[in-house]
């Protein structure tokens, strides 16, 4: 035993440590752990073969672009499997995600069979994924324009709301005089979704873009203001006192103590604000603004082109996932001191 301990102290790799801790796994368990990482690739391969070679319903056709995309995914999985032989973390991650990948592959296969192969779910309401992809590629310049416009509107509204919200919230938390005037506004406006004002704002605003940006900003402003105010008010007293005894003036305390100390609370407001911004964006685009993905969905519905509509919905999903991922990365970076990780 002492020998093992001295080996450990001599510098043991993360992998060896894990293996030591997993020594009570049976051989079957270990074998299963190795085998499971191959299964996602196998199921994706089955889906690919099914899509390309299984006979399709009457005049339906499989999509080459879709097959290409699935192939890319398959290649990525194979590279990952290869990599997992060298990196224990990659192996664990793949093993962890395997069940999810398998489920997705089975779902895609089942949907493909129900639509493209048998026509049990019929067009125009149920296009197969490949058909949606083809439609997106065919209409790509229009879609890019919509994505660009949606992004522009989202960011304009979001950052305006965040900026004003931070200033209002931090000052309201800092000074009771500012709070006296801000709090009633948040009490009244906070209870009402900003989309309520959509008809009147769209009528009064000089540009539809400006009106929609205003509504998004208003929706974001509320949670950001409230969270910043709460964050500032809950800064622990001894931080102020420590800064004071170190000769920091009031402005210094505000910027170097109060703001960073309230960051964790502020970020909950920023995240909440982002989901409100996404919601308001889609509603605004569907109701008034004549550009963007929300508008595109409505427009295609008018033409009865459900395939293109699904394409836009997929793009909206991807857009929001991307935006929220970026926000999460920023949060992790700014609040890295919370976990004590470097």
């Amino acid at each position, binding site marked *: 035993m002492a020998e093992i301990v001295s080996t450990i102290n001599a510098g043991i790799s993360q992998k060896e440590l894990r293996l030591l801790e997993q020594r009570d796994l049976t051989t079957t368990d270990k074998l299963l752990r190795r085998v499971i990482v191959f299964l996602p690739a196998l199921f994706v391969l089955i889906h690919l073969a099914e899509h390309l070679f299984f006979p399709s319903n009457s005049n339906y056709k499989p999509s080459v672009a879709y097959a290409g995309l699935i192939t890319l995914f398959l290649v990525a999985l194979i590279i990952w499997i290869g990599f997992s032989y060298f990196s224990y973390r990659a192996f664990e991650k793949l093993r962890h995600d395997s069940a999810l990948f398998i489920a997705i592959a089975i779902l895609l296969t089942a949907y493909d069979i129900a639509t493209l192969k048998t026509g049990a779910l019929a067009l125009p309401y149920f296009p197969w994924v490949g058909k949606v992809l083809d439609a997106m590629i065919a209409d790509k310049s229009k879609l890019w324009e919509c994505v660009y416009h949606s992004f522009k509107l989202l960011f304009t509204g979001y950052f305006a709301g965040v900026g004003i919200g931070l200033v209002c919230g931090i000052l309201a938390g800092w000074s009771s005089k500012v709070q006296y005037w801000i709090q009633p506004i948040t009490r009244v406006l906070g209870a009402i979704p900003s989309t309520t004002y959509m008809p009147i704002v769209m009528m009064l605003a000089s540009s539809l873009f400006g009106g929609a940006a205003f509504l998004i900003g208003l929706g974001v402003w509320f949670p950001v203001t409230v969270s910043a105010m709460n964050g500032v008010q809950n800064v622990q007293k001894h931080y102020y006192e420590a800064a004071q*005894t*170190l000769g920091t003036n009031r402005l210094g305390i505000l910027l170097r103590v109060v703001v960073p100390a309230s960051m964790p609370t502020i970020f909950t407001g920023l995240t909440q604000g982002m989901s409100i911004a996404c919601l308001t964006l889609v509603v605004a685009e569907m109701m008034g603004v004549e550009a963007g993905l929300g508008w595109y969905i409505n427009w295609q519905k008018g033409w009865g082109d459900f395939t293109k509509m699904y394409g836009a919905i997929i793009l909206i999903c991807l857009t929001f996932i991307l935006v929220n991922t970026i926000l999460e990365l920023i949060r992790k970076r700014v609040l890295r001191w919370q976990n004590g990780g*470097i």
Partner: protein
Amino acid sequence: MAVGNVEIKDVTKIFRRSDEQETLTALDNINLTIEPGEFVSIVGASGCGKSTLLRIIAGLEKPTIGEVTCDGEQVTGTSVKRGLVFQNHALFPWLTVWDNVLFGLRSTGRVKEKKDLADQLLGQVGLEKFKKSYPNQLSGGMSQRVALARALTTEPDVLLLDEPLGALDAFTRMNIQDALIDLWKTREKTMILITHDVDEAIYLSQRVIIMSPRPGRVVETLKIELPYPRNRSDSNFTYYRNHILEKLDLAQKGADVEYVI
């Protein structure tokens, strides 16, 4: 070396509890003179107002009656001349150890000229390897060492220590006590330590001020005439310990019935 003198004149502090009509006399007519470069400890049971007294010296609280002067100047607010180390270290968790230590220098715009001092102090408390760590990654003792370095970088004349070792385990406490003596000898500061640990007070200070609770009063001022480094099992040490404990016990019995706070 004549700076760092603290004079407490007729200081009384009365608190009024917001939920009730009654008032509480936390400090009752305190008079004390602390010489430049002196190491003084204030001991007393909880509720004797010793922390309040320290906060008044720091300028974080105002006395109801009386005044505190530091080098002849009346204390009206906080100042870099009087550094404070808190019981819970109060390090800024969003800053690295190094940025915490430099905090005061950044506030007073002296980072460039005093960077070496900050480096030296961090070395003296034994944490130069942890410059880039965040406070959440440090143990309680390490955090308190950083807090000591942080309070000393601004070069205060008086260092106020508000039970800085109260929350630490016995071994860590002894280590940091030695670090404190080392800092006091090399930096030549006036040190005022609040503690409820009698041994700590005798081990560290030249003078021990014994306070009684409710109302907070000075019972006795005792000179500790032992050479440094002191030996905790020395017979004189034991004598001081017994004497102080006896005084504290009497002070406790003479006090009003304890309030439920």
